């Protein structure tokens, strides 16, 4: 367990230094300025906070997904390619612990970044609205779980395939797993008449996580209260899927020649 946490700590420090996090800084600045920008077009209407939250949370969600795809699919292959993995795995440390540590480090970074961006957006809104909306963090927690799960999926695929392919497969699972019933019924079946596609998506959805469980943007934007039990349930749901994907990755990684 201590080894796992040590790997996670190093992975977190390593990831923080990746140039991709310049995007995080840019996004943080954008989130701070977003409320003022939206307000400039609101023509005095008080709906600016609603629009800002909608815009901001969507951007944060996309950011989380992009980070999960990028980091999740590359952390393990990167260590193998740079050969930093050899001295680490020559230690008395299980490969599953190594994968778990890599995942924890990645998930911690993505979660911290999402909360940072949410905080920036919240501060931006509060500076204009003089009102603090702590519910934003409920949506942020959902996005963190979603991104962490996606990172675990990409990490699992990266043990079997190259990083680009792992990223593509991860994105495919994310898209299919996030399709709502309404989209399948009204768009695929009724509007497009693509019953075969709708059947295929519904069949696949039985075997992959349902990402729409983590999307709390609309209740948060419209100020509906969220049952605390829902957070516990979505967290448990994400943890179970993450453990399953890491287990599959671990089984394969255990016998992989490095």
């Amino acid at each position, binding site marked *: 367990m201590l*080894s796992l946490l040590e*790997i996670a700590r*190093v992975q977190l420090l*390593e990831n923080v230094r990746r140039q991709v996090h310049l995007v995080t800084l840019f996004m943080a600045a954008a989130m701070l300025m977003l409320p003022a920008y939206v307000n400039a077009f609101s023509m005095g209407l008080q709906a600016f906070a609603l629009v800002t939250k909608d815009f901001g949370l969507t951007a944060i969600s996309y950011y989380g997904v992009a980070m999960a795809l990028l980091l999740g699919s590359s952390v393990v292959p990167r260590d193998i390619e*740079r050969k930093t993995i050899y*001295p*680490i795995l020559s230690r*008395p440390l299980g490969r599953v612990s190594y994968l778990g540590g890599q995942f924890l480090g990645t998930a911690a970074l993505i979660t911290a970044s999402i909360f940072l961006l949410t905080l920036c957006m919240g501060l931006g809104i509060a500076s204009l609205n003089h009102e603090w909306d702590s519910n934003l963090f409920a949506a942020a927690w959902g996005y963190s779980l979603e991104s962490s799960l996606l990172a675990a999926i990409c990490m699992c695929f990266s043990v079997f395939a190259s990083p680009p392919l792992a990223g593509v497969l991860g994105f495919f699972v994310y898209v299919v797993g996030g399709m709502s019933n309404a989209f399948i019924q009204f768009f695929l079946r009724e509007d497009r008449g693509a019953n075969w596609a709708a059947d295929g998506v519904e069949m696949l959805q039985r075997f992959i996580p349902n990402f729409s469980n983590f999307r709390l943007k609309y209740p948060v934007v419209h100020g509906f209260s969220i049952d605390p039990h829902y957070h516990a349930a979505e967290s448990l749901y994400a943890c179970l899927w993450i453990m399953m994907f890491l287990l599959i990755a671990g089984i394969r990684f255990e016998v992989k020649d*490095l």
Partner: protein
Amino acid sequence: MLHNAINFQGLKKTFHTLRGPVQALRGLDLQVKPGEIFGYIGVNGAGKSTSIKVLLGLIRPSAGGAWVFGEPAGSLAARRKIGYLPEVANYHEFMSAAELLMMHARLAGVPRALQAERCREALELVGLSTRKHSRISEYSKGMKQRVGVAQALVSDPPLLILDELTSGLDPFAQRDLRDIMLRLKERNITVFFSSHHMNEVESICDRAAIIHRGALQACGTIPELTENRERVEMLWEAVEVSEPVSQISKEGEASVARHEAHSFLQLAMSRGYQLKRMSSKRTNLEDVFHDITRRVDREASACSPS
């Protein structure tokens, strides 16, 4: 019962590639005794790194087995007894040497109370105490190799595996690392190191093994490997040749193994040659290595279907 530090028995490894199976190891048998400095010599692709990776559990053998102090290679118990420096040692460059060593001490399960002391000792041994807080990215290649040796030593292992330790280093850095290895021998640490530098192996190793085409070709102390391979070079003058001797070229030169020299001399003189000059050439490890690898290559190409 005293176990060998390393024991390879009939070790085979076949990689399955798109072009077909590639046999990296073809039944390797090798034993390394505790406390010795053991040189592991072979050309690129001979199977050195593959066999080392088997010891560390990074690769699984196709057949045969490997043991470290009696523990199955790759097991946690075996890995507790190994300190490893890979061929291309890349570390987290944002860390300092002290941070890297602390990380490895934690991963190796060194008790918390001993971690700082072990790191200090390892850095002192490799002569990096004064630069321990500098980032690894600021180090020269030689210093990085020394950090690599320190990280391998931080768990105080009885066996140190160094994969091409001095490759690509300047002569001063090579000498520094050789000195470090000799100091490790004084501490009774078994050092198993692969190298392309024959003079290095000759100068510091108790024993050495030559591996080629995935199998052990020769193993022993340096005198054992080089003795009976001394050659005698002769310059002849053909006075009245009754029947030519096949080993003598047109120019009248011949080079024969020392143990064959006497009978060859008698034969040549009986056929009418006159000896003009004779000298003995001492064979070093490099000559032995070349002789063995060329012979194995010749035999392999003779056996190949093409």
